[in-house]
């Protein structure tokens, strides 16, 4: 029969409340709603513009993961952002190259580029620029560094799940004089990005790209729900800390329910 699994009841209730809250926010959100600036997303146009002025290409990579595991959200978010970058490239006449590590994302990247160029009224998209480099981390890093040094892009976008190769790519980008926008949900890589890239898109901000760039009222409303979720988490942490200090474990028990 159908019954809830042990230990997931509280998270199930929180998820349901979160989804309902998000739905309500998406319904009541209005045009012109304020949302804080995300400099990394604002800089997409600037980076491509600089590449056009310098007569050099743009390089994009949607991270190192595919779309069939738990790391799918950052990869999908990276492909969403690629659509915008490709559209800017098509509009401004910049040459874009995409480096891929997980072959699963190739059809999505191909389709994104095709649609982005079509949206700007251009039939031909840079299909040859989409390259699958290698399926493992350091083979990919070596091939990516070689590609960066060979093509010398003026703008590098490295968005999505990434690991130790981030710093290698960022440092090579600095050496070749590229402007870099990097973003990831991998918390351990954020300090490297902050230190080496021109703009960093932090954690959950990569998921906000579609809402932020399209200014779609519905999706902007969903971003507000995340802020409410943060507020709720802060309250739980503060109340939980106080209760634990006095040896009361009721909140822990509720969350483990």
């Amino acid at each position, binding site marked *: 029969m159908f019954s*809830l*699994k042990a230990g*997931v009841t509280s998270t*199930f209730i929180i998820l349901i409340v*979160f989804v309902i809250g*998000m739905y309500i926010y998406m319904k009541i959100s209005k045009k012109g709603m304020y949302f804080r600036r995300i400099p990394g997303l604002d800089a997409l146009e600037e980076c491509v513009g600089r590449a056009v002025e310098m007569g050099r290409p743009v390089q994009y990579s949607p991270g190192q993961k595919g*779309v*069939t595991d738990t790391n799918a*959200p950052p990869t*999908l*978010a990276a*492909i*969403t*952002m690629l*659509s*915008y970058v*490709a*559209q800017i490239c098509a509009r401004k006449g910049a040459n874009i190259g995409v480096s891929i590590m997980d*072959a*699963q994302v*190739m*059809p999505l990247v191909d*389709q*994104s580029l095709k*649609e*982005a160029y*079509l*949206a700007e009224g251009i039939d031909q998209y840079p299909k*040859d620029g989409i*390259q*699958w480099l290698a*399926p493992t981390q*350091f*083979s990919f890093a070596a091939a990516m560094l070689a590609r960066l040094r*060979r093509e010398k892009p003026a703008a590098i976008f490295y968005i999505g799940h990434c690991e130790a190769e981030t*710093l*290698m790519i*960022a*440092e090579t980008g600095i050496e070749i004089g590229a402007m870099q926008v990097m973003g990831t*949900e991998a*918390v*351990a890589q*954020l300090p490297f990005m*902050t230190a*080496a890239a021109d703009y960093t898109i*932090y*954690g*959950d*901000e*990569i*998921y906000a790209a*579609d809402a932020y760039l*399209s200014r779609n009222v*519905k*999706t902007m409303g*969903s*971003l507000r729900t*995340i802020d409410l979720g*943060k507020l709720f*988490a802060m309250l739980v942490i503060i109340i939980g800390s106080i209760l634990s200090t006095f040896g009361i474990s009721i909140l822990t028990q509720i969350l483990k329910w």
Partner: protein
Amino acid sequence: MKMSFLRREGPLIFTSVVAFFLIIEYYIANSQLTLIATFLNRSAMIVGAFLLGFGIINMTLIHTKNIIQRKPKWPFSLYLLILLFVTLVAGLIPPLGSNYYYLWLFNNIYTPLDPAIFSLIAFFIISTAFRALKIRNLEVSLMLLFTVVVILRNAPIGPATFPPIGWLGDWVIISINTGVQRALNLVVALGAIAYGVRILLGVERGYLKGAG
């Protein structure tokens, strides 16, 4: 109209139904649901593995073009293709994936090269640290201070010459670093849930049709 449905609405409906089903399976205990979820997960893995062939075709086409058109540095493309197909043929000799030739290539070429590339990161870290830790303002000064504390805590000379650096370093790592990392992880998780729900509801479709 039909083509548009196959390219946009179709995948969107399919994604929503599968995602909804997998979420339900995560929370509800039912053997039939688990069976179907396992089937879906395996199907995704098989499709993913199949797409590796796509990558190899892409690589072969691009480098063959480089060779035919004699693009700059085309000999490297030739070298890459030779190695790609030598490894592929070696891997196909029975017993698959564990024959002498394949294992020789893997153990003597790939395995040493992988950590060699990884080791380069030490030099990249030094150059990044040198640039990032130049004192420009209060924030960078604080970052430099904490960096020095953590470096001294990890280096044997730190605790040997100044014992309190041990607990000071522990405090920085356990209290400050862990707290911030947990906060970020929490925020990332919230963002991922909201993103997943948007995909589920079909509101987020940038990944499907390009540009919003």
